[in-house]
C-alpha cells in the first residue's frame, strides 16, 4: 500500500486557504485537516482560521526555565557565599539578599532564554532534513499545501489543487 505525498504550490493565499477549507470539509476521503502541512514564506495568523487551533508548548518550557533560573541561581549564590568564609567579616551578613536578588534576576532571564530556545528547537522540529518536495519557491513568494494520501485519493487531491489554481503540483510515492 503506497502513500502519495502531494504538495500543491499556490501563488494566491486565498486559493490555498479555500483548498484547505475544502479538505477540512472532507472533500478528500481518508485525510483530515490535521494532516495538512502548510509551507509559507511568511508567518500569518489567518492560517489558524482554516487549519484550526494548533497549540505550542514553548511557553511552558520558558516558565520552567525561569523557575529553574531562580532556584538554581539563588542556591548557587547562597552556597558559594556560605562556603566563602572571607565574606562575613566587617559586620555583614553571610548571604546578602539585595545583591543576590540582583544576580538571581539575571540567572532567571538567562535560563528562561536558554530553555525557550531549546524548546523551540525541539518542538519546531528543527535539524530535520527537508523532504524532497521542498521547493525554494516557498521561501520566496508561494504557499505550499502538503498532504499524504492513499493512491486512490491522489487524483482527487490533485484535482482539488488544480481547481484552486495551483501553480505547481509535485508528487512523491513512498512504497
Amino acid at each position, binding site marked *: 500500500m503506497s502513500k502519495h505525498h502531494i504538495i500543491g504550490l499556490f*501563488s*494566491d493565499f*486565498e486559493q490555498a*486557504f*479555500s483548498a484547505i477549507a475544502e479538505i477540512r470539509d472532507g472533500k478528500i476521503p481518508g485525510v483530515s485537516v490535521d494532516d495538512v*502541512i502548510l*509551507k*509559507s*514564506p*511568511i*508567518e*500569518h495568523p489567518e492560517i489558524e482560521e482554516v*487549519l484550526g487551533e*494548533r497549540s*505550542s508548548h*514553548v*511557553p511552558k518550557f520558558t516558565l520552567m526555565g525561569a523557575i529553574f533560573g531562580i532556584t538554581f541561581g539563588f542556591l548557587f*549564590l547562597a552556597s*558559594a*557565599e556560605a*562556603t*566563602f*568564609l*572571607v*565574606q562575613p567579616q566587617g559586620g*555583614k551578613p553571610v548571604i*546578602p539578599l539585595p*545583591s*543576590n536578588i*540582583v*544576580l538571581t*534576576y*539575571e*540567572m532567571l*532571564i*538567562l535560563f*528562561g*532564554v*536558554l530553555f*525557550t*530556545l531549546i*524548546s*523551540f*528547537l525541539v*518542538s*519546531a*522540529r*528543527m*535539524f*530535520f532534513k*527537508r*523532504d524532497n518536495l*521542498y521547493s*525554494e519557491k*516557498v*521561501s*520566496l*513568494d*508561494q504557499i505550499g499545501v502538503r498532504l499524504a494520501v492513499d493512491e486512490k485519493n491522489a487524483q482527487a487531491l490533485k484535482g482539488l489543487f488544480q481547481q484552486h489554481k495551483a*501553480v505547481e503540483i509535485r508528487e512523491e510515492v513512498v512504497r
Partner: protein
Amino acid sequence: MQTKDINEQIKWAQINKDVLTSLENPRMAYWVAVGICVAMIACAVVAEVYQYQMGIGVAALDWPQMWGLYIGTFIFWIGMSHSGTLLSAILHIVHADWRKPIYRFAEAMTTFSLMTAGLFPLIHLGRIWNLYWVLPYASDRGVWPNFRSPLAWDCFAIFTYLTSSALFLYIGMIPDLAICRDNAKGWRKKLYTVLSLGWAGTDRQWRHFRKTYLLMACFLIPLAVSVHSIVSSDFAMSIMPGWHVTTFPPYFVAGALYSGCAAIITLFIILRYFFRFEEYMTIPILEKTCKLTFVIAMAWSYLNLIEFSSVWYGHNEVDKELLLNKFTGAYSPYFWAMLFFGSVLPFTLAFEKLRRHLPTMFVVSLLLNVGMWLERWMIVSPTLSLSYEPFAWSVQWPSIVQWAIVFGSFGWFGLLFLVFVKVFPSVSMYEVKEMVYHRRRANVESKAHEFGRRSSDPQAATGLPGT
C-alpha cells in the same frame, strides 16, 4: 514627498533580490572601510600590549583618577547596545511594524557593541591575566568572587545580555537564512544550510517561531533595563559625590537608549546609501526613529535636570561643590559640550525639514553620540578627580595609550558590523514581506469596506505580488 513607510506594491521577489544582492560582491568602498577598521584595531592592540608590558601607568591613570576613559567608554558601548533591544523587542511587542525593515542591523549593533564593551573592563584591569577570578567557578580553596561587588554583577549581567541578545538576533534571522540557503551557492550554501537549521517554513515551525520570538522579546526588555541599571550601580552603589545618585539607573537607561537610537540613525543612513535600500529604509521610517530619539533625548535632559536639582537642593556640600566644578572647573568645556550635544542639538530632530534631510541627520546623529560619550566621561572622571579628600584632588588628562584603545574599539565595532552586513541579510526579508502583505491586506479590507464586498473576493484581493 514620500509618506508611506513602505510601498506595498513592491514584489516579494524584488525584496529577496534587493537584500540578497547586498550580500554579494563587495565594492571598493567596503574594502577601504575594512582596511580602516583593521588599522584602528591595530593601534589599540599595540597600545594594549604596551600597557600590558609596562603597567597601567602608561595610560596616564593616576591617584586618584583610577578609571578614566576606559570605564567611560565601557558604559558608552553598553549604552549603545540598548537600541537594538528597544527597536526590535519593545516595538515588536507594541506591534509597531515600521521597525521591521530596520531592526535587524539594530540588533546586530546590540550584540557587537556588547562585544566591544566587554573588552574594556578587561583592558583596564591591573592584572588582566587574573581576569578569570571574577568568574564564579568552584575553586578547591573555596574562594569566590565577591557577589556584593557591582563589578561582579556587571560580569553576570553582561554575560546574560550578550547571550540573550545574540540568540535573539539569531532566532529572528533563521527564516532569512533559509532564504539565503535557497539562493546561495558554494561556501555560503553550506554555511546557510547549517545556520538555517533545516528551516522549511512549515506552519508548525512558524507557530513555534512566533511564540519563541515573542517570549524572547519579553525577556530582553527587562534584561536590557536591568543591565544598564547594574552598570549604573557601579557608581550609584559607591559613596562618592556625583556617583551616589538615586536617579542613576533610569538616567543610564535613558542615556543608553538615546545613544543607541542616535547610532541607529547613523547606520540607517549609511546602509541606505551604500546598499541602495531606499525602498526599505524609507524617509518616513527614519522620521519615526528621529521622533523616538527626540523623545528619549528630552527624557534624558529631564533626568539631567533632576540630578542637578536633587544635588542642588540636597544637603551634601561636597556634591554641590563637585557639580559647580563641573560647570566651571577644568572639565567644564566637556561638560557644556555634553549638555549642548545632548539637550540642545536634538531639537534639530523636531523639525520635519531637517529630519528629512539625510546629511544633516547623519552629522547630527554622530554629534549626539559624541555628546553621549562625553556624558559617560563626565560621569566617571570629575568624581574621581575631585571628591571628599581635597588633598587628593588632581585633574589628569588621558594619555595616547588610553586614546588609542578607545579609538581602536570603534574600529573593532566597525569591523564586526562590516563582516555582518556582508554575511547576513541586514534587512529582514520575511518581515518586510509580512509588512507589505499585511498593509496591503489592510488597505484591501478598508477598500472592501467602502464597496461592501467580501475581503476574500478574488477581484478585491488581487493575488500576490509574486505573480
